[in-house]
């Protein structure tokens, strides 16, 4: 990682400079006055080398999986195999227009069809739609299908979505987007759902429940079958948030647990790149009851021929969520990944992500750190709490997180889930080697020692990154969102 700041690209700009080799010359448009742009947009004017150097330097100011251990809980930052990218970027795939006729799309459609089939199998679902473009859109599709199901049965009062207090913020946000109201239920001190509270929340208004299993607390919901029965008996459906699917891939299937709908984060479990915040891909799977409502398009097969299925094939569909076919290129990457893992490889995902997480947890406990759920197995992730350090040393979870950056480790997820005070949610993933995990533990032990001797040192971290801690209050109060907005240049 570089520690040298890079000026804004606009600072490299000189009037009249450009990368002329990159675009056609000679054409000028005759634009009628009423449509004409009067003043050119303030885009930079730089040479190709300047642009390449600028953006390469910017890249060097990032932590990434390719450069650093990235144990960000709930995000499954596993290695993104280069082959997945290389084969998804074959020129024929890149050049294919989304609306090209089926006759010149059979190769592409075959990949998508097989991906649907594989995802059905690993989740225990009856149908899959690949179109949602991110986890949040998959969630939206899931809840929208639950709504459509009740509506189709003329069961119009069912507008409440039950969400555990440990849930991701997207769950309640999604429920609201779908016109539902949110009923929050608490978790027990051991991390399981409070069944009594669930019983109290269920009723004739229940549309469904949104669950992550293992939960965001990093533990498996042991009474899931009982939960499923209670919800179904009350007339509701079960939604599986696939955020933590990596923990159970090849071990247990959401369909077998009783879930009616699931979204998968292909960018987590199936290793497509996170890309600095996207693209994601939030494919949804459904059981029998929700099959008629799947978002379109999906890929069907007639004999040897693949074709798009649309409104005509799925008349009760919740509709289209993207202009074309979701994040198609991401789907190809997930397809290559699944083919490379194969049947045996699927099981190993959960096995080795659990091995790495439980090993890290065991070593950290032994080193004196406090597990939030010490009596429980870790799933693919676990929580340690810095409540004691915050109280005794005045060094909190965020301070530990920032100091870890100086040691060359990306910070775990901090302050989520909200239930556990001063928490670090740690997810190593299956692709990390033992020595990397050992190095991470050693770093935390070293920071603990620093905190005991010189708390201020830890609280001032990081020191070795391109910037030190940023003034978020100033960022929010004195908004500076574009170059030139504030006349400081």
């Amino acid at each position, binding site marked *: 990682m570089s520690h040298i700041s*890079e000026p804004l690209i606009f600072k490299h700009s000189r009037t009249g400079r450009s990368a002329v080799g990159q675009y056609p010359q000679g054409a000028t448009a005759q634009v009628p006055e009423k*449509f004409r742009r009067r003043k050119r947009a303030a885009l930079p004017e730089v040479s190709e080398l300047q642009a390449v150097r600028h953006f390469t330097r910017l890249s060097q100011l990032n932590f990434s999986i390719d450069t650093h251990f990235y144990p960000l809980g709930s995000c499954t930052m596993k290695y993104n195999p280069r082959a997945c990218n290389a084969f998804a970027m074959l020129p024929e795939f890149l050049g294919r227009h989304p609306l090209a006729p089926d006759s010149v799309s059979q190769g592409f459609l075959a990949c998508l069809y097989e991906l649907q089939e594989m995802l059905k199998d690993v989740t225990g679902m009856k149908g899959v739609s690949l179109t949602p473009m991110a986890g949040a859109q998959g969630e939206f599709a899931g809840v929208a299908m639950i709504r459509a199901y009740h509506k189709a049965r003329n069961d119009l009062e069912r507008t409440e979505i039950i969400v555990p207090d440990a849930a991701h913020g997207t769950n309640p946000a999604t429920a609201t987007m779908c016109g539902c109201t949110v009923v929050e239920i608490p978790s027990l001190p051991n991390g399981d759902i409070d069944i009594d509270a669930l019983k109290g929340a269920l009723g004739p208004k229940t549309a469904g429940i949104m669950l992550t299993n293992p939960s965001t607390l990093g533990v498996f919901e042991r009474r899931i079958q009982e939960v499923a029965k209670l919800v179904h008996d009350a007339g509701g459906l079960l939604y599986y948030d696939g955020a933590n699917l990596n923990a159970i891939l090849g071990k247990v299937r959401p369909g077998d647990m009783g879930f009616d709908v699931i979204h998968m984060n292909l960018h987590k479990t199936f290793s497509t790149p996170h890309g600095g915040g*996207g693209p994601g891909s939030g494919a949804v799977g459904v059981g029998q009851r929700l099959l008629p409502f799947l978002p379109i398009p999906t890929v069907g097969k007639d004999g040897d021929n693949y074709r798009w299925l649309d409104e005509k094939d799925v008349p009760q569909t919740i509709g289209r969520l993207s202009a074309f076919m979701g994040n198609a290129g991401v789907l190809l990457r997930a397809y290559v990944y699944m083919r490379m893992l194969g049947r045996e490889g699927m099981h190993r995902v959960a096995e080795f992500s659990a091995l790495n997480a439980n090993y890290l947890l065991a070593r950290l406990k032994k080193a004196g750190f406090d597990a939030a759920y010490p009596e429980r197995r870790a799933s693919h992730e676990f929580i340690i709490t810095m409540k004691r350090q915050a109280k005794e040393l005045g060094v909190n979870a965020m301070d530990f997180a920032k100091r870890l950056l100086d040691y060359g480790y990306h910070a775990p997820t901090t302050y989520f889930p909200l239930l556990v005070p001063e928490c670090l949610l740690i997810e190593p993933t299956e692709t990390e080697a033992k020595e990397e995990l050992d190095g991470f533990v050693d770093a935390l032990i070293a920071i603990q020692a620093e905190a005991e001797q010189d708390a201020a040192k830890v609280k001032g971290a990081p020191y070795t990154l391109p910037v030190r801690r940023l003034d978020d209050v100033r960022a929010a109060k004195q908004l500076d969102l574009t170059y030139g907005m504030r006349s400081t240049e």
Partner: protein
Amino acid sequence: MPFIPHTETEISEMLAAIGAPSIDALFDEIPAALRIKSLAAIPDALSEMEVGRLMQARASQDGRPLNFLGAGAYEHHIPAAVWAIVTRGEFYSAYTPYQAEASQGTLQLLYEYQSMMSSLTGMEVSNASLYDGASALAEACLMAVRAHRKSKSARIVVPSTLNPTYLSVSRAVVEGQNLSFTVLPYESGKGTLQFSTLEALKGEDLTAVVIQQPNFFGQMEDVDAITDWAHANNALVIAVVNPLSLALFKPPGEWGTKGVDIVVGDGQPFGVPLSSGGPYFGFMTTRMEHVRQMPGRIIGRTVDLDGKQGFTLTLQAREQHIRRSKATSNICTNQGLLVTAATIHMSLLGAAGLESVAATSQRQTSKLIEKLTRIPGVKLAFDGYRFHEAVLQLPVKVREVLDALAERNIVGGLDLSNLYPELGNALLVCATETRTDADLDTYAIALTDIVTGVVERNR
């Protein structure tokens, strides 16, 4: 084991540290009855070489037909430098910049992107992107309802010249939230909004009016008049634009007297390959007064403890991880990697380069129309000024023509006969700067052959 580094010795050491007899024992909290028996539909693993062979075979099967289809996804030249940088691991394999100090590269790039998009669209602020153009319009409609507190109707007016898929997606996304869409017809012969139908809504409570420029047919709407009418009737204006066209055309921030309120569109023309429809990215820009109603990530510039410039996520209290059920949207991510491509693309081409690409695309489309309308029975559906797409009417069924063109390795355009049955055998075509004069001739010769052939056969 692919992508799993553990040796047998390490596995034993790790299990010993955990105090577990086997890896399987780590799953002892899962009820035994739930454990997977088999995964019959998953084939055996392939090596990288084998999967490469499979993917190349699939890709070759589809080939590289000569493309004259646009309709929201456009084939443009992408400088080699763009994806060489985008696929650097530091961009490709990083996540959302929650730890700002460890993500300054991504954050600064997004700030530069926001600056470029604001200037290009003539607006004050931009978010860090949404999923795609269609879903960005859905979000813009929801945002308009939040931002326009005085309007109680949640009624959005859209012309039928809006990309029909954008309307379908908007309907699907806002389904649970009591918004309504009023679709207004276009003027036959012109292919632009029939203004009198808008005027007929005078005095009604409208939350927003959507205008696409250039519209789905490639024609130019009278954006100044529509914008001013909407504002005079207390409605917000949402512009849907092709960002490349803004190199030539008046930015939405300058439409009418006051400019529009929200701008959205698909950023695909900037450095993003067609790639079967995605991943692309949606962009959104707006006025400063509406910034708190804008969904999605927003990056701000600030200073660190030492007073040094730095970049960070800001206005996060709008977002789902803080506001939960009261968030502006459930969106978490942006399309970071594609925005990276677009920002590099815009930097390489600059305003002059984009202007040249847009002008060349427009010129090639004009040439294409000229060649194709020489074919007997083929004519333009609409008069008027256009950008780089046009609607042609054919003397024969479009579906048959497109199939026959596909056999000659040409993707000939979009069949509009289901979407706009009143246009008859209508075909939407597009040529960008990537189509040479020889390509245009290839298309014209093939179409002449096919149309003549079908006409003969039907005789």
